[in-house]
């Protein structure tokens, strides 16, 4: 019994799984929909609407055994047809209009074997497919409902098989859900779940302090102590998927020189930044991935902070004192504004002349980065929702990718392509680790930290297992 209210930053605009790609969609919709697989708060993969799966035909076919007696919120039965419908829609013209399709392009088609068995026929191997099936576009949707009501109606009146069902949606204001007692995983303990869209961090905290929301999801680290101080609230800080780096321009400026790049890494005291700016809510990283990520190499250590050595390296590389170094970043990221200033402080200590250029996010993503208009360095924060280094590394380092405007390294390209065709977990992990090491050796970026996911939570919430990726599931949560 009871209601839990969660603040999310953005309104995705549509609750249809294939329409958006924002985390806030998942925070809410993860309670409405189920995927064939599921990921728990511990980030481990487990069965969802599929109870089991097996790889057939030399890994080109995956057979899923479906859970039986599952119903959508509207009473429609869940079965193999629903799965086929979902993926036909995702991979067909409807999915084309949205950003989700490309994540699932490795699937050729879905075949119904019987009412509770489906086969996924693969176009190409996709080692992270099972993870992807646990979220976003792969969420299973009700065929009859969509065919009858139409796509637009579905956008604002979603129906799934999840533990909570849709009640009402007010654009830019809130989404209200209520418990769906017939959920296959057991009835939720709560009656009602409300998601309020609040874009401003200060406002989320104020609402949390006023007791009008139970979970705040948007907390710049500077505001964390405010939550900690409040006796009614607790601050939850867990290792999250987000990693932050200063990517480097290997084509122009002083960063052309690999030794300079290394000197920059060594000149920035990342531990101090984590301690002082993130207030300890983060960890140092050696490559552009979190330790939860597949491909993480505990043996790869970050370059140590060594100011004297860094200075010396710069001198050897012939860098003049006062050489400019410009850092481009997203202007609306309050935390990174401080991180960037701290980093700039260290660069200054190296005798360089740093400058910071804030950008509006779309401009940075659409223009500055893909067109190679950045300064010597640019801010890159990466969510890596699949927790697989492939997703990150390929986009960051493969030549021709949007996120990689500068490097064209055939050796790196080859490694990146190779790991995509391998299902062997061990071998793939080895290549991914190799890639990470190669990137570190060439100092393509300054890995800064893996920042924690933090929530401000009202203490009246019980049994709340905070997920690292903000994809909540409130089935077991109770309130006082």
């Amino acid at each position, binding site marked *: 019994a009871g209601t839990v209210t969660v603040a999310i930053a*953005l*309104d*995705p*605009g*549509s*609750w*249809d799984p294939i*329409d*958006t*790609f*924002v985390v806030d969609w998942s925070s809410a919709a993860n309670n409405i929909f189920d995927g064939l697989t599921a990921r728990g708060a511990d980030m481990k993969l487990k069965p969802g609407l599929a109870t089991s799966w097996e790889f057939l035909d030399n890994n080109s076919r995956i057979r899923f055994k479906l859970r039986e007696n599952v119903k959508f919120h509207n009473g429609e039965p869940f079965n193999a047809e629903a799965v086929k419908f979902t993926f036909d829609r995702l991979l067909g013209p409807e999915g*084309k*209009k*949205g*950003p989700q*399709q*490309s*994540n699932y392009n490795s699937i050729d088609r879905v075949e119904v074997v019987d009412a509770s068995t489906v086969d996924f026929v693969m176009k190409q191997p996709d080692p992270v497919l099972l993870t992807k099936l646990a979220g976003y576009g792969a969420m299973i949707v009700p065929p009859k409902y969509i065919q009858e009501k139409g*796509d*637009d109606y579905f*956008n*604002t009146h979603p129906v799934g098989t999840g533990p909570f069902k849709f009640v009402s949606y*007010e*654009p*830019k*204001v809130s989404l209200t859900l209520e418990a769906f007692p017939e959920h296959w995983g057991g009835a939720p303990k709560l009656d009602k779940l409300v998601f*309020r*869209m*609040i*874009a*401003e961090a*200060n*406002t989320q905290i*104020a*609402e949390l*302090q*006023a007791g*009008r929301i139970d979970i705040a999801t948007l907390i710049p680290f500077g505001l964390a102590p405010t939550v900690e101080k409040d006796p009614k609230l607790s601050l939850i800080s867990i290792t999250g998927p987000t990693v932050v780096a200063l990517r480097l321009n290997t084509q122009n400026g002083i960063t052309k020189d690999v030794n300079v790049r290394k000197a920059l890494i060594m000149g920035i005291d990342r531990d101090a930044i984590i301690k002082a700016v993130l207030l300890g809510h983060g960890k140092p990283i050696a490559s552009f991935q979190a330790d939860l990520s597949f491909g993480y190499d505990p043996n790869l250590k970050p370059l140590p902070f060594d100011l004297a050595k860094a200075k010396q390296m710069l001198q050897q590389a012939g860098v003049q004192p006062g050489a400019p170094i410009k850092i481009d970043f997203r202007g609306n990221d309050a935390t990174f504004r401080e991180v960037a200033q701290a980093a700039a402080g260290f660069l200054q200590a190296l005798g360089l002349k740093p400058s910071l250029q804030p950008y*509006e*996010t*779309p*401009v940075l*993503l*659409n*223009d500055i980065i893909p067109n190679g208009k950045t300064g010597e360095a640019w801010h890159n924060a*990466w*969510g890596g929702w699949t927790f697989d280094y492939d*997703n990150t590394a*390929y*986009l960051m380092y493969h030549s021709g990718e949007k996120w990689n405007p500068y490097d064209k390294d055939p050796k790196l390209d080859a490694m990146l392509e190779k790991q995509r065709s391998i299902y062997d977990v061990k071998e793939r992990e080895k290549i991914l680790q190799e890639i990470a090491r190669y990137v570190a050796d060439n100092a393509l970026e300054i890995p800064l930290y893996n920042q924690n996911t933090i929530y401000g939570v009202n203490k009246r919430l019980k049994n709340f297992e905070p997920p690292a990726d903000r994809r909540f599931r409130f089935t077991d949560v109770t309130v006082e």
Partner: protein
Amino acid sequence: MAGFILKRLLQAIFVILAVTLIVSFAIRLSGDPAVMLAGGSNITEKDLQNIRQALGLERPFYVQYLSFLKGLLVGDFGRSFMGGTPVSLLISKALPATLLLAFVSLLISIALSVPLGVYAAVKRGRWPDQLIRILSLIGLSFPNFWLAIMMVLFFSISLGLLPPSGMEGPESFVMPALTMGIILTATNVRLVRTSMLETLSQQYIMVARSKGLKDRVVLYKHALRNSAIPLVTYVGLQFGSLIGGIVIVERVFNWPGMGTLAFDAISARDYPVLQGAITVLALFIVLINLLVDIAYGLIDPRIRTE
């Protein structure tokens, strides 16, 4: 009169055309909604093309603009790129919220600035006048978001009196309207004071006094009505900047209004929503200025008969 209205109508049409053209063009220069939709995801140029195609963005600009205009004629603003909600639906929810807020703010500002301005004018040069003027300058020295956050800290966190955000009951109007009202008041007080001083030196004020009228009647009947003319003009002009300021105030108070709508639309490069929102806002600003002209006539008979 008919000629006047016709003229204003033509002007309004021109303004709307110019505004929509500028906005449609500028937003297209500033970024690609397909990339925004895809977020940071693993998306190829081909997929982007697909999305653009689905959104009708591969057509030349003038075709897109004309089709937007064609939609306007029948009241169809198109659908949001984010989820396909009809823009008119979004606007129909956001517009009342913003207008209500704007009007309450204006009311607050008028309720504050008129008596203060009149009092300052009457006490011209003496300490109450100086105090009011300095206070009004201090009111001009704070950015609205800062004022807004301070209010939340005080009224919601310290006193626990008012909801920190959202639009629920009448109590949720207090802080946003007060924030905007205070900032408007700061400029309006000066305006009222100046035009009152001007009016108070007129002969007919002395005539009114020579009739034995009470000060209150002289000030609020004879003087204020005449001083209201510049105030009304200014309030009309202010409406535009009011809407500008609303973007930030709405954001802090999480007010589901046009400011939030337009701001989010810019951030997401959601062209139809932005175009629709700005068109409607511009329409309102034009309408308000028309109302101001009519209000002139009501206040000042000299204009009425022209």
